């Protein structure tokens, strides 16, 4: 411990001197601010009626929306179970009509009149009925690609939200604000999308951690050091991690200041720790896991650079719907995603989240911790092997 802690501190200071870190801070903060500009500088959340009407009209006409385009979900009113069911069936019947030439309108009317599958989440009855219609209209080889309606894919058809009147929308917003502070909402948005931006910066920053030590002339020099391989690898990793986490912390501080100013201007309640708690609980574990993966890979290939494309793809793919070869959406989030987005679990981030939501994320965070320790163990072993050679 006598050498370990000072070694971490030395590496942290070394990483902080790197200009790439500070450029990444500026770029990430600018991108996050630009993406959240509407909610941090605009009239959100209590807009005037003219702006709301313009937004609602643009939505219905599929026209380019006004300034508050990114806030759609926050103003949408949750539909009743029956309206959600009707919307879903209408959309699914239209899909089957286009792809399998079934009589969409007649099928829709039959399903609605008989309330097929309305009482349960299992859509088997609806699927069997439409499949029987498709059997009469398309050849067998096309029928093999029939897309069944299932519990996990049903949300891709229709919607459970609708555009309400101005009074309805503002009453909903007011009720949310009475349950949760506005800065909490901003923190959640940052945890949702800002975390991705910071993660991208981590890919490049962590790939630099061992870049100089991997060079042959440096490696020979390191043999004279008396610190153990584990202390060296963990010390370098933790030093870089501290610097990168500090970079994100500074970014959160800037955004907290902007949020506080916006809340005070609008007369809303705000909390100083609201952005930080989402950053440390949501984003930092992912950053540390990425650092560990990069460290292990650098020990294997002397550089972490080639892993950057794969990490990028891993993050992007994890935020999109995954499909099989038929184009059926399988699931929005897999357990082994590099990070989970809050928006994948809730349509509208303005909805106050229950405690059970955070408990459901705990296994993913434990998984990230397991990956971290596994990768660091591999890295130490590889470093020892290289030292022996």
């Amino acid at each position, binding site marked *: 411990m006598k050498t370990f802690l000072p070694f971490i501190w030395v590496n942290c200071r070394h990483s902080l001197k790197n200009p790439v870190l500070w450029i990444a801070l500026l770029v990430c903060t600018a991108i996050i601010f630009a993406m959240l500009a509407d909610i941090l500088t605009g009239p959100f959340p209590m807009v005037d009626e003219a702006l709301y009407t313009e937004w609602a009209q643009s939505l219905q006409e599929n026209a380019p929306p006004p300034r508050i385009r990114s806030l759609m979900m926050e103003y949408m009113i949750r539909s009743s179970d029956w309206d959600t069911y009707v919307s879903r069936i209408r959309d699914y019947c239209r899909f089957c009509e286009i792809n399998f030439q079934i009589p969409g309108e007649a099928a829709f009317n039959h399903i609605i009149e008989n309330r097929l599958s309305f009482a349960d989440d299992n859509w088997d009855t609806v699927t069997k009925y439409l499949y029987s219609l498709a059997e009469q209209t398309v050849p067998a080889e096309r029928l093999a690609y029939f897309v069944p309606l299932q519990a996990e894919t049903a949300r891709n058809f229709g919607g459970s939200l609708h555009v309400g009147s101005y009074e309805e929308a503002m009453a909903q917003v007011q009720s949310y604000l009475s349950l949760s502070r506005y800065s909490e909402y901003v923190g959640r948005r940052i945890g949702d999308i800002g975390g991705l931006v910071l993660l991208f910066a981590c890919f490049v920053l962590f790939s630099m951690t061992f870049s100089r030590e991997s060079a042959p002339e440096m490696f020979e020099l390191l043999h004279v050091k008396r610190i153990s391989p584990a202390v060296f690898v963990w010390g370098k990793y933790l030093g870089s991690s501290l610097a990168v986490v500090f970079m994100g912390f500074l970014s959160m501080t800037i955004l907290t200041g902007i949020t506080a100013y916006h809340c005070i201007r609008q007369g809303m309640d705000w909390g100083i720790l609201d952005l930080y708690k989402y950053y440390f609980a949501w984003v930092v574990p992912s950053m540390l896991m990425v650092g560990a993966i990069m460290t292990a890979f650098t020990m294997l*290939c002397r550089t972490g650079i080639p892993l950057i494309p794969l990490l990028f793809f891993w993050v*992007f793919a994890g935020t999109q719907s995954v499909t099989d070869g038929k184009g059926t959406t399988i699931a929005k989030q897999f357990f082994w995603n590099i990070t989970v987005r809050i928006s994948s679990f809730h349509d509208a981030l303005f909805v106050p989240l229950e405690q059970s939501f955070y408990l459901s994320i705990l296994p993913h965070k434990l998984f990230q911790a397991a990956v971290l320790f596994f990768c660091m163990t591999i890295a130490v072993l590889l470093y020892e092997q290289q030292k022996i050679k």
Partner: protein
Amino acid sequence: MLRFQWKILFSSWPKTAIALGSALCIPFLFRGDTVFRALYQMDLYLTIPAAVLMAELFHLEYAHRTAEILYCTRRRKSVLFLQRFVTAYVLLLAVSVLVFLEYSLLYEGIRWDENRNAGYILQGFAGIAGTLFFFGALSVTVTDLTKNYFMGIGAALALFLLFYYLPAFRNTPLISLFTLHQTTGWPLCKLFYTALGLLLLWINDLCIQKSPVK
């Protein structure tokens, strides 16, 4: 001489293999059940392996301190850099063809797509070539200007994120890069960025001619 450059360029074959191999993962991660969608995903995501692969084309010389010793004539430096750039670029285009073949095999919908004709696909590949050229040129130019390939890769990736996330970059005509077959002006946009790429390579050429290297 080209074989010699090939050996220098790919002296660390696991590194190159992983960077290019990541491109082959694109069809498994990003849906492309139509020709348009497959070409769009390729146009978007192949830029990342391009930025990573192209960054250290000349940085190898700075890292090993041979930039001013081995290739001491101006013409020689330019020619050798061009050989490496063209080699890496052709390799990326070959990988992009493989990626499209993967999409064709993985997604049945492509076989029935009305856009499955040579003209449409070749136009798409021409657009992808323009995007790869621009991002490769940007990555290598920033690397050589700053003598730091993390800066080169970081600059290319930062620009990619701006194009990906910010509406101002996505929706503005001529600036929005990833608009393959989506707008009427997309060929003009690709030509614009190809011209920018040529300008960047010219700046890079001026940079690598500077001697001595500090």
